[in-house]
């Protein structure tokens, strides 16, 4: 466990060295200004607009980790040959993968935390500027739950990108797979709903239906972790829904990491 933590801290520091946090700080400042200014242009739902922008920014900031850091996870270490010095110090490949993932988790949590604090400032400034009347439906616990579930969704996605990077050494291919996973993960639910009740005249072939059903079990349903709209309207998900999402998220992440370890253990690094 100590070794995993050590690698995680090392990966986290490496992420910091890439000046990700500076970018995030600038992004956070931009977020506060934009959401406060834009929300004032609307008629009534000022709180909803502010929250929409803040939660979208937290998502976008969190996505930097899987899209820009996780895709280079192994490629960079192999390129710099740091992987060999690590693996030669009695660190197993499983510990290496878990440690790397741990580092990405730490980075994601830090980014989400920074952006959440900026979002809180943006909401507070908006409330101060436009008055309590427009913030009657502001529901802080619903926001906290939405951000936490969003964080879980980001970790699920990061775990899948870790899996792709353990399968392929090409950063380009990993990026393509990450984009495909993101698109499928966010549209699958809509497509399945469309398939269940196709509009008159539209016939969905059984092959497409089976492919989509298979995709439902292979790719993560990232849209399920998206509680932003409900939170923006001050709606709290049920306890049952939260437990279900937690189980799905933790289960999927664990499965993806196990697969990543299996692939990485069989991989020829030379």
């Amino acid at each position, binding site marked *: 466990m100590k070794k995993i933590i050590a690698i995680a801290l090392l990966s986290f520091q490496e992420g910091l060295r890439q000046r990700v946090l500076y970018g995030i700080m600038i992004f956070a400042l931009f977020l506060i200004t934009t959401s406060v200014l834009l929300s004032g*242009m*609307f*008629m009534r739902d000022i709180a*909803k607009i502010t*929250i929409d922008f803040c939660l979208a920014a937290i998502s976008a900031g969190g996505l930097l980790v899987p899209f820009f850091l996780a895709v280079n996870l192994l490629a960079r270490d192999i390129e710099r040959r740091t992987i060999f010095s690590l693996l030669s110090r009695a660190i197993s490949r499983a510990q290496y993968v878990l440690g790397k993932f741990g580092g990405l988790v730490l980075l994601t949590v830090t980014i989400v935390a920074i952006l959440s604090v900026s979002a809180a400032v943006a909401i507070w400034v908006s409330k101060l500027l436009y008055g309590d009347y427009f913030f009657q439906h502001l529901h802080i616990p619903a926001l906290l739950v939405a951000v936490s579930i969003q964080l879980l969704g980001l970790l699920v996605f990061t775990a899948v990108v870790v899996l792709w990077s353990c399968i392929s050494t090409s950063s380009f291919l990993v990026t393509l797979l990450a984009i495909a996973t993101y698109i499928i993960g966010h549209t699958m639910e*809509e497509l399945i709903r469309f398939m269940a009740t196709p509009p008159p005249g539209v016939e969905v072939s059984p092959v497409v239906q089976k492919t989509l059903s298979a995709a439902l079990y292979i790719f993560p349903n990232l*849209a399920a972790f998206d509680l932003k*709209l409900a939170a*923006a309207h001050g709606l709290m998900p049920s306890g049952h829904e939260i437990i279900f999402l937690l189980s799905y998220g933790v289960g999927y992440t664990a499965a993806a990491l196990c697969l990543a370890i299996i692939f990485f253990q069989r991989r020829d690094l030379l």
Partner: protein
Amino acid sequence: MNRSYPTVLALVLATTIYVLTIPLLGEIQRQRQVEEIGKIGEIPPAVVRALSFEFKGVVADFLMLRTMAFVGERIGANQEFIQDEWRYLHRLLTKITEIDRRFWDPYLFAETMLVWQAGMIEEGNQLLLKAAEHRPWDYQPYYFLGFNHFYFKKDAQRAAPYLRRAARIPGAPDYLQGLAARFSLYGNETAAGIIFLEDMLRQAANPTVSQYLAKRLQTLKIIYDLERKVAAFKIAHDRLPQSFQEMIVAGLLSEVPPDPYGGEFILLRNGRIYTTSELIGVKPLDKK
């Protein structure tokens, strides 16, 4: 010669060119707006929802902002809408409410513009029914539905159940309890319109919309005042006045007030007040 001179010169030239093109670009984009709004309206809602990924709220907000900017610009320039543009707007508002079904602004905008300005009562009511379904905590969709039936469709019987449903929702203002009765008691749509517009004005945060509502409210108040004076004339003389001049002679009116919309108030034979501006050409659309 300093080696950086050609680069600086090129920079100045390039900056001048792009700065000069900025106003022209704005004009081109303005011309494109109608076409784009029409095109966005044609995309199936399921596709827009799917393509919004996890940013559905923000996509709905941007589309709403675009809609408001388009309408605001027209109002600012005093330009009238053509029927197709109203239909584009209706489709776009429907789309926005498909992406985020609980978003109140598009419903409020439909009530303010489609119903009041374009006379698209049925379309507005359909959107309000959707709002009532997805915003069960909000009294306003039923309140607006009740008002539309009373004021625009002159159907007090259908208006009453909507107003009663609105009054039952927690958080509804106390005055809603007796509003159905008050509307019927007044038997006067102008008074009901004033109550309704005052309520909408209290909620409007956007300056363009506030100005638009305030102007309409001001005009309705003038009409209401004139109608009350006509009623006072009738009580005093046991007949309706034939003209405003008669009311001025009777000392009820010092002059005919100007219409804030630039039209002219006309006293109808039944004692009601009409304005030639029709509050910016409010004519119901021909349904094709």
